[in-house]
Protein backbone atom coordinates (compact mmCIF):
# COMPACT_ATOMS: atom_id res chain seq x y z
CA UNK A 1 0.00 0.00 0.00
CA UNK A 2 1.18 3.53 -0.77
CA UNK A 3 1.45 4.48 2.88
CA UNK A 4 3.73 7.47 2.35
CA UNK A 5 1.41 8.91 -0.30
CA UNK A 6 -1.60 8.53 1.98
CA UNK A 7 0.21 9.90 5.05
CA UNK A 8 1.44 12.94 3.13
CA UNK A 9 -2.02 13.82 1.79
CA UNK A 10 -3.69 13.29 5.18
CA UNK A 11 -1.06 15.45 6.90
CA UNK A 12 -1.55 18.26 4.37
CA UNK A 13 -5.32 18.16 4.89
CA UNK A 14 -4.88 18.24 8.68
CA UNK A 15 -2.64 21.30 8.37
CA UNK A 16 -5.29 23.05 6.23
CA UNK A 17 -7.86 22.21 8.94
CA UNK A 18 -5.47 23.46 11.63
CA UNK A 19 -5.21 26.84 9.92
CA UNK A 20 -9.01 27.10 9.94
CA UNK A 21 -9.42 25.78 13.48
CA UNK A 22 -6.87 28.19 14.97
CA UNK A 23 -8.25 31.07 12.93
CA UNK A 24 -4.80 32.03 11.70
CA UNK A 25 -5.84 32.23 8.03
CA UNK A 26 -2.23 31.89 6.94
CA UNK A 27 -3.15 29.90 3.84
CA UNK A 28 -5.48 32.64 2.63
CA UNK A 29 -2.66 35.17 2.38
CA UNK A 30 -0.95 35.61 -0.96
CA UNK A 31 2.26 36.16 1.02
CA UNK A 32 2.10 32.52 2.12
CA UNK A 33 2.19 31.21 -1.44
CA UNK A 34 5.09 33.49 -2.36
CA UNK A 35 6.88 32.25 0.76
CA UNK A 36 6.12 28.63 -0.17
CA UNK A 37 7.57 29.18 -3.66
CA UNK A 38 10.78 30.50 -2.08
CA UNK A 39 10.94 27.49 0.25
CA UNK A 40 10.32 25.08 -2.64
CA UNK A 41 13.15 26.67 -4.64
CA UNK A 42 15.56 25.90 -1.79
CA UNK A 43 13.85 22.56 -1.27
CA UNK A 44 14.73 21.51 -4.82
CA UNK A 45 18.41 21.98 -3.97
CA UNK A 46 18.39 20.35 -0.55
CA UNK A 47 15.88 17.57 -1.15
CA UNK A 48 17.41 17.02 -4.57
CA UNK A 49 20.84 16.55 -3.02
CA UNK A 50 19.56 14.24 -0.26
CA UNK A 51 17.78 11.98 -2.75
CA UNK A 52 20.44 12.13 -5.46
CA UNK A 53 23.37 11.12 -3.26
CA UNK A 54 21.36 9.32 -1.86
CA UNK A 55 21.54 10.18 1.80
CA UNK A 56 17.97 8.98 2.13
CA UNK A 57 16.44 6.23 -0.02
CA UNK A 58 12.69 5.72 -0.45
CA UNK A 59 10.99 2.34 -0.51
CA UNK A 60 9.17 1.99 -3.84
CA UNK A 61 6.49 -0.06 -2.12
CA UNK A 62 5.18 2.96 -0.24
CA UNK A 63 5.13 5.85 -2.72
CA UNK A 64 3.77 6.40 -6.23
CA UNK A 65 7.15 6.35 -7.91
CA UNK A 66 6.67 9.73 -9.55
CA UNK A 67 9.68 11.97 -9.13
CA UNK A 68 10.71 15.50 -9.96
CA UNK A 69 14.40 15.01 -10.73
CA UNK A 70 15.24 12.59 -7.92
CA UNK A 71 12.57 13.86 -5.50
CA UNK A 72 9.38 11.81 -4.92
CA UNK A 73 6.32 14.04 -5.53
CA UNK A 74 5.09 13.08 -2.05
CA UNK A 75 7.98 15.09 -0.61
CA UNK A 76 6.40 18.30 -1.87
CA UNK A 77 3.15 17.49 -0.07
CA UNK A 78 5.14 16.49 3.02
CA UNK A 79 7.15 19.71 2.75
CA UNK A 80 3.97 21.76 2.56
CA UNK A 81 2.77 20.23 5.85
CA UNK A 82 6.06 20.86 7.63
CA UNK A 83 6.46 24.41 6.35
CA UNK A 84 2.81 25.46 6.74
CA UNK A 85 2.44 23.91 10.21
CA UNK A 86 5.53 25.81 11.39
CA UNK A 87 4.23 29.23 10.36
CA UNK A 88 0.60 28.57 11.36
CA UNK A 89 1.67 27.66 14.91
CA UNK A 90 4.09 30.60 14.98
CA UNK A 91 1.36 33.05 13.95
CA UNK A 92 -1.08 31.54 16.41
CA UNK A 93 1.26 31.51 19.41
CA UNK A 94 2.60 34.97 18.64
CA UNK A 95 -0.89 36.47 18.40
CA UNK A 96 -2.09 34.65 21.50
CA UNK A 97 0.70 36.23 23.50
CA UNK A 98 0.01 39.71 22.12
CA UNK A 99 -3.70 39.66 22.90
CA UNK A 100 -2.97 38.34 26.37
CA UNK A 101 -5.14 35.25 26.11
CA UNK A 102 -3.70 32.10 27.54
Amino acid at each position, binding site marked *: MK*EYTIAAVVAALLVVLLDGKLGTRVLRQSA*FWIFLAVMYAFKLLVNGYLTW*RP*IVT*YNSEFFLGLRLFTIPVEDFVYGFSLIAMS*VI*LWEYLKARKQTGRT
Partner: protein
Amino acid sequence: MTVEYALVLFCIIIGPLLLSRDKKLNLYGHSAALAKSIGIVCVTFWVWDVVATARQHWWFNDAYVLGPRLLGMPIEEWLFFVVLSFVSIFTWESTKYFLKRRR
Protein backbone atom coordinates in the same frame (compact mmCIF):
# COMPACT_ATOMS: atom_id res chain seq x y z
CA MET B 1 31.87 11.42 3.92
CA THR B 2 29.94 10.67 7.08
CA VAL B 3 29.56 14.38 7.86
CA GLU B 4 27.60 15.00 4.68
CA TYR B 5 24.07 15.05 6.08
CA ALA B 6 25.30 17.20 8.98
CA LEU B 7 26.93 19.58 6.48
CA VAL B 8 23.68 19.89 4.55
CA LEU B 9 21.89 20.88 7.76
CA PHE B 10 24.63 23.37 8.58
CA CYS B 11 24.34 24.97 5.13
CA ILE B 12 20.57 25.31 5.53
CA ILE B 13 20.63 26.94 8.94
CA ILE B 14 23.75 29.10 8.93
CA GLY B 15 22.36 31.96 6.82
CA PRO B 16 18.99 32.20 8.60
CA LEU B 17 20.68 31.83 12.00
CA LEU B 18 23.04 34.74 11.38
CA LEU B 19 20.36 36.97 9.84
CA SER B 20 17.69 36.05 12.40
CA ARG B 21 19.03 38.54 14.93
CA ASP B 22 17.91 41.40 12.69
CA LYS B 23 15.60 43.57 14.75
CA LYS B 24 13.26 44.14 11.81
CA LEU B 25 12.17 40.51 11.93
CA ASN B 26 11.76 40.52 15.70
CA LEU B 27 11.97 36.72 15.92
CA TYR B 28 13.46 36.69 19.39
CA GLY B 29 10.95 39.20 20.68
CA HIS B 30 8.65 36.18 20.62
CA SER B 31 11.16 33.58 21.72
CA ALA B 32 8.58 31.58 23.68
CA ALA B 33 6.28 31.36 20.64
CA LEU B 34 9.30 30.49 18.50
CA ALA B 35 10.45 27.70 20.82
CA LYS B 36 6.93 26.34 21.25
CA SER B 37 6.22 26.29 17.50
CA ILE B 38 9.47 24.50 16.78
CA GLY B 39 8.80 22.07 19.66
CA ILE B 40 5.31 21.12 18.51
CA VAL B 41 6.39 20.68 14.87
CA CYS B 42 9.37 18.55 15.93
CA VAL B 43 7.37 16.20 18.16
CA THR B 44 4.71 15.74 15.45
CA PHE B 45 7.20 14.99 12.69
CA TRP B 46 9.48 12.92 14.92
CA VAL B 47 6.59 10.57 15.64
CA TRP B 48 5.78 10.30 11.93
CA ASP B 49 9.43 9.80 11.02
CA VAL B 50 10.12 7.14 13.67
CA VAL B 51 7.06 5.14 12.52
CA ALA B 52 7.89 5.62 8.82
CA THR B 53 11.54 4.65 9.38
CA ALA B 54 10.48 1.58 11.37
CA ARG B 55 8.10 0.57 8.58
CA GLN B 56 10.93 1.16 6.10
CA HIS B 57 9.22 3.89 4.10
CA TRP B 58 12.75 5.21 3.78
CA TRP B 59 16.21 4.55 5.16
CA PHE B 60 19.41 6.47 5.72
CA ASN B 61 22.74 5.75 4.12
CA ASP B 62 25.42 4.90 6.71
CA ALA B 63 28.07 6.39 4.43
CA TYR B 64 26.72 9.92 4.95
CA VAL B 65 25.65 10.08 8.59
CA LEU B 66 27.82 10.49 11.68
CA GLY B 67 26.65 7.28 13.35
CA PRO B 68 24.61 7.89 16.51
CA ARG B 69 21.03 6.70 16.11
CA LEU B 70 17.97 7.02 18.28
CA LEU B 71 14.92 4.85 17.60
CA GLY B 72 16.42 3.89 14.27
CA MET B 73 17.00 7.45 13.07
CA PRO B 74 20.36 9.17 12.70
CA ILE B 75 20.92 12.17 14.95
CA GLU B 76 20.90 14.38 11.82
CA GLU B 77 17.34 13.33 10.99
CA TRP B 78 16.18 14.41 14.47
CA LEU B 79 17.84 17.78 13.98
CA PHE B 80 16.36 18.14 10.49
CA PHE B 81 13.00 19.23 11.93
CA VAL B 82 14.51 21.75 14.34
CA VAL B 83 16.41 23.27 11.41
CA LEU B 84 13.50 23.24 8.95
CA SER B 85 10.86 24.65 11.30
CA PHE B 86 13.23 27.45 12.33
CA VAL B 87 14.19 28.23 8.73
CA SER B 88 10.49 28.20 7.73
CA ILE B 89 9.57 30.76 10.37
CA PHE B 90 12.60 32.91 9.53
CA THR B 91 11.81 32.84 5.79
CA TRP B 92 8.12 33.56 6.47
CA GLU B 93 8.94 36.66 8.50
CA SER B 94 11.49 37.75 5.87
CA THR B 95 8.96 37.30 3.06
CA LYS B 96 6.37 39.38 4.92
CA TYR B 97 9.00 42.04 5.62
CA PHE B 98 10.05 42.37 1.97
CA LEU B 99 6.46 42.37 0.70
CA LYS B 100 5.51 45.10 3.16
CA ARG B 101 8.52 47.22 2.25
CA ARG B 102 7.69 46.99 -1.45
CA ARG B 103 4.23 48.43 -1.01
